[in-house]
Structure formats: C-alpha cells, structure tokens
C-alpha cells in the first residue's frame, strides 16, 4: 500500500491554494467548480508547479519540501499523467507513443502492466500503426492512458481525461479506468467535473472550493456533507462485488449490500469483480414488513442513516444496507407519509433493469 501525502500552498495572482490531503491506493477523485485550484493542485504534485510552502511525499520519497528546499524534477518523480487533451506526440505512431516512457525505464517494477496486456485491455491493437492525428477523442485518451501505465508509474494523475471524449463513450472508458485502477493498485488522483465519473471511480472524494478542501471522505459521506455534490444531477453510489451466474439472461453480483440481480451482464464480462452504479432516483423505500408481490427483483433490508433536503422539494436519504452505503431520493410528502426518521428500518427496492454495470 502506497500513500501520497501532500500539503500545498501556492499563490497565483489573487488566487491562494491551501490544500492538505493524503491518498492511498485506489482512486481519489478531486471535484470542485472551475477555478477552485484542482489543476494547480495536480500540477504541484506532478512537479510542473513549485508551491511556495508545504511538503509532498510518496511513501518515504520526498518530492517537495519547502523547509529543506527539496524539489525533485518532474522527470524523476515517476508519476504517470493523463492530460485532458491526451498530449500524444504527433510525430510518433501510436506504438511509439505507448513505448515512449517504457523505453526510458531502467528497471521493471514487479507486476507491471506489459505492452500486450495494455494493448488488449485498452482495445487499441488496431490503432498501433496509426498517427495520433487520425484518432478519435476516446481512442486518443485510451492511448494516453496506456502510455502513462507502460512507464510503470508509482502514482497516476488524471486531469479530466474524459472531457474531450464523446458522451456515449465516457461510461465505457470510465469503467475501463476503474478496472485498471484495481489492476495496477497505486494511488490515482482523478480530476473531474462530472458526478457520473465521480460515482463510477471514487474510493475517496476531495471537494476543493476556493483553493481549500471543503470536504473529504467516501462518496456517500461527501455527498451528504457537500452542497456541491448533493445538488449534482444523477446522484448514485457504486457497489462493487463478484459476479455469480444466475441463468436465464440474469446475473447476480455479490455486493456488501447483499446479492443484487441485474438484468444482463454487459458484453460477456460476467466473471470476476465488477462495479454497479445504483442511482438514488431508482431506489424505492418501503417500511414495515418486507414488501410482497413486487415486480422489482431486489429488496434489500436497510436502515435510514441520515436525511437531507435537496432542491425540487425532495429529500436525500442515506441508507446502510449490509456493509454498503445506498442513497434514495424521495419526496417530502413520502417522508411524511412513511413517517421516516433517521434510524428507521426500511427496505430498499430496486429494479434489476435499473442497475447498470
């Protein structure tokens, strides 16, 4: 397990960034409005910006320490970076781009992603001979991700990597990034504006507002604590688990919330670990006895943990089901009708077809 610890103070014009955080293996998503300092924070960790004060370390390696004057140059930090616009080298083929960092490695890290593995997982084998200028946005970002991974980084930074990707390909690449984050097992800092990407990827969320970290923690914690996330459209949580075949076009995923039936496995990957996105608007609540005679296949015993008002006269309910967090959005009227209070035992009802893997 690696640990990135950063304490960064820097001033750019009238803007002051003062952020302190740590990130373990897995994806730490940094969200915040434009101009909140997300990119500056990332660039300071990368080594492209030198903070005025603070300290940045990865395990026992000091990247930056204002007190001792240490500032390790960017090229010696072994930090992989996926930029918003890909930044592939236009004069090199896709293959040469992929191998750019790999060729400059002195030693291989045990368990690193090989060229063949990266090409297969990212689905870029047909592109190897092409030039970057001929690639689509999604293809470009997959190559950029492969290029960063093949340099065997100890830390991976991604600055809105899906911003230049067509909307219909974003989910696909986001779940690819999630799968890779489990494979490479290093700390990943991921900047985004999108709640969807946050929900699909985050193991930890940092909310940056006006150059300060205003909330940090697990997705459900941060949603309840930060108005910025709470008001985002499409609120959802991610449940991770193992596939277990169920037959008849249905499959179940064994999650910490209990087994969840999904109507169909996406394109054959019905084995190993997967991540399900459960939208708060798809979770129906029932009180009293377990509901009977429903068409919905998933009925999970849960407890309402916290409730908070959100726009459009609705209430966001945070639930605990088994070992997992769930969210549900219901109306004020329903809350009153059910007499719902924090601590109440409820049943969370979810249609199999509403859950996307």
């Amino acid at each position, binding site marked *: 397990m690696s640990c990135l610890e950063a304490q960064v103070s820097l001033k750019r014009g009238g803007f002051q960034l003062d952020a302190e955080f740590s990130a373990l293996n897995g994806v730490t998503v940094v969200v915040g409005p434009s101009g909140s300092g997300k990119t500056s924070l990332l660039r300071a960790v990368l080594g492209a910006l030198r903070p005025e004060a603070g300290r940045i370390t990865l395990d026992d390696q000091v990247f930056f320490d204002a007190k001792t004057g240490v500032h390790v140059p960017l090229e010696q930090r072994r930090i992989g970076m996926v930029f918003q616009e890909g*930044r592939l080298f*236009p004069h090199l083929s896709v293959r040469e781009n992929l191998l750019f*960092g790999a060729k400059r490695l002195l030693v291989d890290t045990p368990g690193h992603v090989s060229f063949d593995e990266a090409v297969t997982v990212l689905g870029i084998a047909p592109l190897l001979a092409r030039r970057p200028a001929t690639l689509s946005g999604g293809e470009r970002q997959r190559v950029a991700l492969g290029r960063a991974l093949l340099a065997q980084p100890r830390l991976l930074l991604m600055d809105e990597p899906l911003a230049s990707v067509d909307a219909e390909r974003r989910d696909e690449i986001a779940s690819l990034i999630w799968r890779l984050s489990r494979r490479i097992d290093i700390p990943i800092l991921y900047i985004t504006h999108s709640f969807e990407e946050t929900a699909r990827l985050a193991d930890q969320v940092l909310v940056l507002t006006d150059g300060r970290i205003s909330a940090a923690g697990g997705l459900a914690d941060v949603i309840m604590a930060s108005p910025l996330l709470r008001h985002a459209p499409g609120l959802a949580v991610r449940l991770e688990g193992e596939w277990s075949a169920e037959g008849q076009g249905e499959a179940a995923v064994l999650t910490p919330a209990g087994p969840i039936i999904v109507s169909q496995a996406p394109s054959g990957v019905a084995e190993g670990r997967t991540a399900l996105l459960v939208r708060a608007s798809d979770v129906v609540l029932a009180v009293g006895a377990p509901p009977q005679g429903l068409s919905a296949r998933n009925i999970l015993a849960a407890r309402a943990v916290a409730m908070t008002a959100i726009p459009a006269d609705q209430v966001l309910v945070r639930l605990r089901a088994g070992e997992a967090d769930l969210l549900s959005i219901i109306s004020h009227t329903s809350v009153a009708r059910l007499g719902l209070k924090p601590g109440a035992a409820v049943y969370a009802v979810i249609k199999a077809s509403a859950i996307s893997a």
Partner: protein
Amino acid sequence: MPRPRRPLRLLSPEPRLSLQSTFLPSPAELVALRVSLTVAVRALAFTLPLAVAVAYGLTRRRFPGRLLLDLVSQAPLALPPVVVGFALLLLFGAHGVLGAPLARLGVRLAFTATGASIASGVMAFPAMVRQLRLAFEAVDPRLDEAAASLGARPWDRLVSVTLPLAGPGVIAAALTGFAMAMGEFGAVITFAADIPGETETLPLAIYATLQTPGGEAEALRLSIMSLVVAGTALVAAEAVMRRLRQRIAP
C-alpha cells in the same frame, strides 16, 4: 604560321560554339562556384547548431542575460555588413583581441577561406535565429511536460520531441542561412578579402568581373550559377519540408 591564341568568336563558322562559350562556365568560374559552396556549407555547419541552441534558449528558457543574448544575436541584422566585417577584423585580425593569441597558436582567420565562412555565417545568424524561434514557438510546450512525465530528461526531450516537431522550421532556417551565406558580400570582402580560389565567392567574382571592361558575359554566367544553386536548394528544402510535415500531421 603561329595559330592565334584565341579563335575569333565573331568569325566562328559554328554558332553552337558561340552559344557554348557564352553559357558554359570557364574553369575559373567553376572555382568561384566551388568556393561559394564550400564557404556556405562550412558557415552553416557551425552556425546552425549555435542558432538552434540560441533560438531554443530564447523560446523555452528563462535565464539571466536573456535580453542581452537576444540583442546580440540580432545585431548583425541591423549593422552594415562592412561594419560586421570590420568588427571581425578587430576581433580576429593578426593584432586583434582574439586574433593575436590565435596567431601565436598558428591559427589565422582573417583573409582565409575559414574567415569567409565565419563572416558569412555571422551575417546569416540573425535570420536563422528568427526563423528557428518561430519554429520552436509553434511546438506545443505542453508536449515537453508530457515527455518529462514519461521520464525524459531535458536534452532527451529536445532531441526526441521538440526538434523533430520543429523539423520543417529547422530546414527552412538552414536554407535561409545557406542562401544568405552564399550571397554575403560586404562582410566577406572586408574580413576575408577577394582571393580567387580561396575567398572569392560568386558575389565577389561577379563584382570583380563587372570591374573589368567586357566582363558582362562572365558576370551573367556567374549570376546564372547563383540562380541555379539557389533554385536547387529551394526545391530540395521544399521536398524535405513536405515530407516532414506529412509525418507530423497526416
């Protein structure tokens, strides 16, 4: 009866002979061409790397004395070439600041072919730096950052990213430098004098023939040679630039 030393051209029965003698260069004229090419190639050999370094430094780096370097590199553009030649004499002449110690080592630059290369190289330098700066400015500096994040050190990044991407611009700058070195007159004649076979380049030879009565035909042949060299260089450079541009952005 002794034969006349030269056949009388006007009485020659063969019109083709006359055409040949008008348009085919004489051995002495070919020597001027050879001198010009040698001087220009050697001028380019030492100026181009220096111009690349200065242009790269001025575009991508911040360092003390940057403005001074900028001004010094532009100076030959604003000065009369004769003044540049004279300045070179003051520096590298037999009694010059650098010339005297060099002379003790047995190195003489003034009034030599090397001197002609230096004079024409110095005159070509500012235009090359200008063109190279444009070429480097056109390369996205963010690619440099991407290369650094992949472990490439500064020199590596210059050689494997910035220079290849600036390729067409570097070719254009080399062509400009070559053409300017081929054509330099004032600085060369002041610093290296007009020594046939050594420092007499095409422009110097053209000037010399024009000082001789009836030298127009020879001057014309020399001028045509200059034109052919410049034309060939332009076409070759254009072909190379096209190929490079295609490689960068198909």
